[in-house]
């Protein structure tokens, strides 16, 4: 199941904060370790006033669930009720101007909360981009907690969903090239693949292209 959450975040960094709150809310409601296994991403919304929305993929790997949609305490009514509850919680999170949509195979029309057409289209766009991995940047994803400290590229690929590492500016690299993750790794989704952009840094290592807390110098006047 994929949930799209649009809280009118400006850019990726702002949307990170929303993504973490979605994860906390979803994890608490769903129980177990589901919160740890949620995949969260941010997505640019370019129709209307440009902003950034969040997607949340709930794992579909509960083996004892006949419907396979990962909802604990199943029973159709329980699952649906829990889903409604989650969507309501997330809608409270983003407020009346925001929107939340949830889709799953057995919910052909999805669950929809919100009235603002810009936010609704943003939430739907986030769901679509996450489902196809066509665009966006991953915030939480399988293996993210293993991407800490300095790692060779080969280990980085082994430990996470990252499909490839791309060096901005075209410097050569191989599996042994060291990446100082700085404990902040935001791979990008495009064309169905997960790419991590890196750039040269002090000391001959690579660092992720996106840094935590970038300068906002003079950007918001």
């Amino acid at each position: 199941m994929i949930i799209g959450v649009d809280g009118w975040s400006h850019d990726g960094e702002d949307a990170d904060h929303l993504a973490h709150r979605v994860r906390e809310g979803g994890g608490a409601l769903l129980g177990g370790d589901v919160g740890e296994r949620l995949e969260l991403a941010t997505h640019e919304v370019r129709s209307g006033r440009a902003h950034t929305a969040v997607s949340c993929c709930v794992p579909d790997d509960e083996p004892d669930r006949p419907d396979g949609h990962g909802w604990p305490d199943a029973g159709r009514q329980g699952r649906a009720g829990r889903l409604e509850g989650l969507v309501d919680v997330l809608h409270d999170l983003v407020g009346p101007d925001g929107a939340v949509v949830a889709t799953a195979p057995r919910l052909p029309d999805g669950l929809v909360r919100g009235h603002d057409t810009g936010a609704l289209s943003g939430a739907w766009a986030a769901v679509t981009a996450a489902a196809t991995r066509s665009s966006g940047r991953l915030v939480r994803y399988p293996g993210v907690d293993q991407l800490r400290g300095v790692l060779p590229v080969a280990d980085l690929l082994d430990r996470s969903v990252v499909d490839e590492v791309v060096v901005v500016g075209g410097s050569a690299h191989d599996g042994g090239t060291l990446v100082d993750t700085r404990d902040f790794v935001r791979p990008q989704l495009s064309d169905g693949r997960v790419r991590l952009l890196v750039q040269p840094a002090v000391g001959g290592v690579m660092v992720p292209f996106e840094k935590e807390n970038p300068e906002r110098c003079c950007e918001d006047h």
Partner: protein
Amino acid sequence: MSHDHGHPHSHDHGHTHGHTHDAAPVDDTTAVAIDTTVPDTELSPTQLSRRNLLRAAGVVGSVAAVGLGHAAPAAAATGPTQPRGRNVVNQWVAGDHHIHTQHSSDAIYTVADQAQYAKSYGLDWLVITDHGGATHARIGVDIVNPDIRAAREALPGTLIFQGLEWNIPSAEHGTVFVAPGDNEVAVLKQFEQDYDGGVNGTSSSSPANEAQAVAGVQWLGKQVDDKRIESALFLANHPARQGIDSPHEIRAWRDADPRVAVGFEGAPGHQAAGLPNGAASGRGFYTNAGTNPNRFTAYPPESYRTWGGFDWMTATGGGLWDSLLAEGKPWWISANSDSHFNYLATAARGPGSNFNAEGRYRDPVYSGAPDETAGDFWPGQYSRTVVGVNRPGYLEVMQGLRDGRVWVDHGRLVKGVNMVVRRPRNPRSDSPLGSTVAVPRGTALELSITITLQDLPNWASFLPVLNRVDLIQGSIDVAGPADRDTFLAPDTRVVRSWDTSGTSGTIELVQPLGNVTEPFYVRARGTDGNRSQPGYRGATIDPEGPALDVVGDADPWEDLWFYTNPIFVTPL
């Protein structure tokens, strides 16, 4: 590709260039049509038709018709200070059009402080450009003016313009400034109130906001037409920093009023920001990763970093800037400080400040310790925009910027650059930077770059060395690209490089341009040669371009470049 390393010819170069044009085989209609001192209204229908053809052919602004003097008698009677003589470069004046003061919410210094540093560091002109915004539009734009007028009095010989840093609707920032006069504040204030993206909430990308930007440029032009001000200019600042200045927006500004919208920063300010033992950020504070949803999505990740200190749009051989020049239309580059807080300065914000209430911070006080993490240089300390004028003056500097008689450098890499296109071995036919050389088809031309090498230390106390000069050439298609969002020039590339190591004094680099049959442009750049890599478009186009600046490890003093603006050549 051709990539020979020729040897420059060294010689003393003391003479000034003459500008009496030779007679040439051009028909009278063309001669009159090309004479920009004759207004449209005084042309015959045939002459006007010819002029419009020439305009359509990209023969722009400061047309220099090599060898037309005899056929344009009006020109012969005018001296070098007359309009016909505006191409005559008697002097190069260095300046900076992007400087903040205590009237910006993220800056600190007084106008006098910036101005006297600018003068001390060798600048002849500067533009005060505090951020547009609600407080500035309400208070700052007014109260900065007496400070600017006082600085003009205190520093005679230094030209100090009032401008502002415009939040361009739907886009980045830009310098807007006007010629001094009775209405300088009134025009800037009304412009800011009506067209600033921050004041009006029009900063996000949308067609309606893009139209606001175009309307703003046109409004400035109208103030000149209405004689409220004598001159107004707009140049876009740090254009690639956030990826939100799309190619079609830049083209739209340019076409909105080419008298006003004349270029962008080839190199952004904040050049100290990459110092490894300083701010250790990105050079130019270019550290974005393209997460602004207003961005132009086709810009690659490489566009969000500087290359050899220059913005990717300019640093890329065959890139966005070249794609604009390949249309044969003027679009010029500059290099500025963007001074807010300067590296190793010893100032602290004035105590008791209330920016929103007072429209500025109180005058700074002594901080007691150098600021080691500030990312900026003082005006003139590192970056300069050098403009050719026939005599110093406010209008002359603005006209020089408008005409593209401009080269820029970092760290005072060179002392002087004079690039001209001329008939072979005929210095009297020199046509300067920014000009369009219109000659009969088949005329033989050559390019000459006279470079006065640096003989004084720069402001980091060492003598910079010019080790290589590259010549970049591209063809012109006046029809322009089908896609207004293109950022690639079809066939622009580095056509020649000169090894200039070991030279001193004045050198002249000469490149034959052949017999002109198709329109093209040429531009040059030079470097200390410390850092290079194949350009974004590959080694066949730019084998030794500027290198991607490393975030946190970009010492600007160890990577110096100069860039010239282009000269256009078009057969008649």
